[in-house]
């Protein structure tokens, strides 16, 4: 989807024509920004409290004999104890789902999904971006707010978010949502998937943060005010 940039101007007097100081594009609608930041907090709490819950039984095998997979440090967990972790997880679960539904509904009904949804037409744009990021090739010209690789990453992140809820319900409610647990290969696999999806999301967050740092202040501010100064297009 094309976002049109506007000129930011200054008029020194009524006779002089306005001087163009910079260009700016309104890239992120309000609901998208709001959901982005609520979700940032919710995701942080869900991962932290999820790891607290994992600490109670850090294994994917039998209870007897118990073989722990890893000892996750308490300092990197939220809730302090299993009951506390569950309180955070069960509270923010609804904030996380609510935000996700609001975001998806907004994207679909406003048509703004075209900004972020990776489609077949974006396919040819992926390799040039990979070459740019990883092999120092020149940056392909950008005609819209997100490049092909960005769209791919964001679309994948949305899919992971949906999967995190689906796998979570399969672990939490394997009877009421027996069809979900079945799709994941049973209750045990659902628990493994839920864990794996969390790590995949954290990997996305890491990559996302690296990119945010690399792309500087104006890009970061755009997720706060919606406006990106001096866009490439």
């Amino acid at each position, binding site marked *: 989807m094309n976002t049109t940039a506007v000129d930011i101007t200054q008029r020194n007097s009524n006779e002089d024509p306005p001087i163009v100081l910079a260009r700016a594009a309104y890239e992120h609608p309000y609901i998208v920004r*709001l959901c982005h930041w609520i979700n940032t907090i919710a995701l942080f709490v869900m991962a932290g409290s999820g790891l607290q819950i994992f600490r109670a039984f850090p294994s994917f095998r039998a209870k007897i004999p118990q073989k722990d997979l890893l000892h996750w440090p308490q300092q990197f967990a939220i809730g302090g104890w299993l009951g*506390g972790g569950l309180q955070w997880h069960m*509270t923010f*679960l*609804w904030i996380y789902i609510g935000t996700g539904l609001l975001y998806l509904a907004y994207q679909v009904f406003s048509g703004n999904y075209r900004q972020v949804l990776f489609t077949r037409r974006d396919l040819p744009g992926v390799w040039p971006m990979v070459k740019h990021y990883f092999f120092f090739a020149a940056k392909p010209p950008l005609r819209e707010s997100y490049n092909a690789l960005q769209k791919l990453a964001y679309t994948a992140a949305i899919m992971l978010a949906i999967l995190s809820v689906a796998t979570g319900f399969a672990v939490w409610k394997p009877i*009421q949502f*027996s069809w979900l647990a079945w799709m994941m290969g049973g209750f045990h696999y659902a628990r493994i998937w839920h864990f794996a999806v969390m790590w995949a999301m954290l990997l996305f967050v890491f990559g996302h943060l690296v990119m945010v740092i690399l792309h500087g202040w104006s890009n970061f501010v755009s997720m706060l005010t919606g406006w990106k100064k001096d866009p490439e297009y």
Partner: protein
Amino acid sequence: MDKKKFRQNSRRELLKLTPLLALGAFVIPGLQEKLLKRGLHFSDWMEARLFRPYHLAATFDDSEVTPLNKFPLNTYDVDDPGVIFENWSLTVTGAVQNPGDYTLAQIQTLPRVRQNTRHVCVEGWDVIGRFGGARLSDFLRLIGADPTARFITVNCADDYYESLDMATAMHPQTLLCYEMYDRPLTREHGAPLRLQMPTKIGYKQAKYLTDLKVTNVLDREGYWEDQGYSWFYGL
């Protein structure tokens, strides 16, 4: 767009995000506990909506059952609260037509159900056990329980206590369990009588039952619930 107008617009768009600060309430010490309690309460309420009264838990082949010696024991203080079986009875009170003491023999006159179902612990592990007993719904009919009452509460010989919703109590797989692996319950597994509900998490499967009450009011929820765990916790 004029520079001034652009600045104004940017500031307004930024200020529109201030509702986010409300989430900061979760880090205010006095408020945090209350909010999380509310959150868990809301989650429990949603859980009750998600519960399907006639949807059955999966049952398993005998070959899939976890051997009894690999069935973990979780007791909150003692493995054996020293119940004297000869003197034991289940004391029934509350909104029932036939209150009083019920012996194990009386409970065993009800149709016996044997089922291989999954037992899931809140910690994350699970086992498949073979459980036998009377349907709680049959027992509730025997004692003439008020079907419109909201809760069932139980007390245990080891001071453990639990409560559950009527919908789960009436579920066809909810048992007053007196058998595991086709043998009478052993002491450490809750002899002579325990709850066995495949649609509930492990800590709700109270052992060594001594009292059962049908009620509309919960003075207390359960041993773990009153320490901050979920009350409904259905699977």
